[in-house]
């Protein structure tokens, strides 16, 4: 920060400074226990209150888009696991959806069911981990995180027995899935799904009516609905502000229309609403899983005519998007007829959800900035791409 932060950022401080003490410019920098990885916030403090907050990105910019334009379409699939490294299967699905849209590839029934089952399991373990990290930043050092990771390990065991790797599944192909979900995998999934309601009840007992959680999160980091829509916020953060926009219901992608599930909405748009929206979304995902596991049909797990390797789509472009656990994850591919896309663009939900971080943190205490940042739920692999 060569020049002082106030001048550098030509936006006037949005709240009045009572000028009693000097302002302190400090960097909650790349190496910080509460920034979920390498994310930096330059903060101007008046005592405890935050006057200005400037996020700095790029510490994990691993050039996914440039690699996407050099390697072929199939080779890019394992890289999408490493975008949002909590939810590798939804990343795969978003990329597969975009390519299927680009080449007009059909997907058989069973593959659609498998995709819905794995995506909803990914959503549950992502929301559980997010709540675990959020409460860890409020001071519950570890207990909720232990509960969340105990469930996450069960779901990762299923992913490993099905795809081969716990976190980097590289499972979906253009036109279906790589390996079939045998009866053993389905029974394992059923066993997990029957055990999950008890876990979510335990989680709610532990947290929902906890006075400290309510005191630390109610009324903090409030996000108005119109600012949320204008700033392109998507996912649980948007629905916590009361805007009913869930891409599973809007785009009707995959076969989500066959399942009856509701979209939880918040009223105040504060941290407690985001926590509650995530807990309720876990329960809705459970409902989808029960219905999907009940009537999954037999049949091919991949379209037999699907070309996987070394195919050259006709020149054209396509933008495929899904409701990832963190928001709208989109892939925009421009093909010029070659084996690798001419332009490979990822629409990262966490990166754009951080647009309003400063608006939510102004006037709060520094300790609450950490909690507001935790409630946004970002993963640096997807923020910096």
């Amino acid at each position, binding site marked *: 920060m060569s020049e002082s932060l106030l001048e550098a950022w030509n936006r006037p401080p949005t709240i009045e400074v009572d000028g*009693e*003490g*000097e302002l*302190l410019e400090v*960097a909650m*920098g*790349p190496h*910080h226990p509460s920034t979920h990885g390498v994310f*930096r916030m330059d903060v101007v403090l*008046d005592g405890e209150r935050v006057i200005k907050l400037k996020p700095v990105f790029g510490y994990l910019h691993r050039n996914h888009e440039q690699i996407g334009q050099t390697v072929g379409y199939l080779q890019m699939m394992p890289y999408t696991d490493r975008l949002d490294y909590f939810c590798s299967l939804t990343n795969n699905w978003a990329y597969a959806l975009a390519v299927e849209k680009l080449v007009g590839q059909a997907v058989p029934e069973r593959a659609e069911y498998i995709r819905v089952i794995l995506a909803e399991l990914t959503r549950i373990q992502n929301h559980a981990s997010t709540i675990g990290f959020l409460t860890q930043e409020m001071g519950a050092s570890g207990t909720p995180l232990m509960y969340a990771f105990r469930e996450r390990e069960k779901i990762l065991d299923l992913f490993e027995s099905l795809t081969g790797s716990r976190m980097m599944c590289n499972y979906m192909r253009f036109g279906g899935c790589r390996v079939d979900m045998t009866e053993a995998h389905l029974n394992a999934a059923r066993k997990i799904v029957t055990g999950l309601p008890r876990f979510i009840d335990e989680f709610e007992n532990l947290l929902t009516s906890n006075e400290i959680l309510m005191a630390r999160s109610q009324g903090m980091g409030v996000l108005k609905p119109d600012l949320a829509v204008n700033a392109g916020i998507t996912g649980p953060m948007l629905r916590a502000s009361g805007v009913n926009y869930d891409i599973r219901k809007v785009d009707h992608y995959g076969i989500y229309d066959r399942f009856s599930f509701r979209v939880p909405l918040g009223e105040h748009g504060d941290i407690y609403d985001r926590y509650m929206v995530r807990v309720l979304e876990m329960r809705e995902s459970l409902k989808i899983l029960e219905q999907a596991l009940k009537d999954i049909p037999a049949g091919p797990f991949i379209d037999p005519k699907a070309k996987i390797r070394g195919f050259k789509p006709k020149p054209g472009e396509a933008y495929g998007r899904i409701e990832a656990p963190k928001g709208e994850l989109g892939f925009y591919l421009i093909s010029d007829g070659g084996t690798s896309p001419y332009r490979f663009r990822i629409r990262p939900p966490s990166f754009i959800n951080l647009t309003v971080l400063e608006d939510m943190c102004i006037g709060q205490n520094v300790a609450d900035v950490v909690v507001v940042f935790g409630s946004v739920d970002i993963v640096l692999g997807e923020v910096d791409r």
Partner: protein
Amino acid sequence: MPPMTSSPYFSLAILFFGALGFGLAPLGLAWLWAHTFAPPKPNAIKNAIYECGLESKGDAWVQFRSGYYLYAIIFLIFDVETVFLLPFAVAFTGLTAGACLAMLVFVLLLVEGLAWAWAKGVLTWQ
């Protein structure tokens, strides 16, 4: 002059030096070990201020708000008060009622100071 060993304070002195030795011995050992084995290699980067991996700009000796200072002062009063209460707590069974009353006055005087500060809104953090 009575021999050193029979004076009542002698056992106290032994205990004192024993405690002191017990406290300082590991520190001394560690210092000796570091001094003989690990050669000091200080350098500018190692001694720089740690600020999340960046060079820390500006200095931290800012003129901070008065609220912090008042908070610290009030804590200090009660900290010192407990030091005075310690000997009283040890011996108050043998003391007369008057002594208890005097100590009560001392405690209430300070509590009255806290009440005044609280009323003035020093403790509320806006």
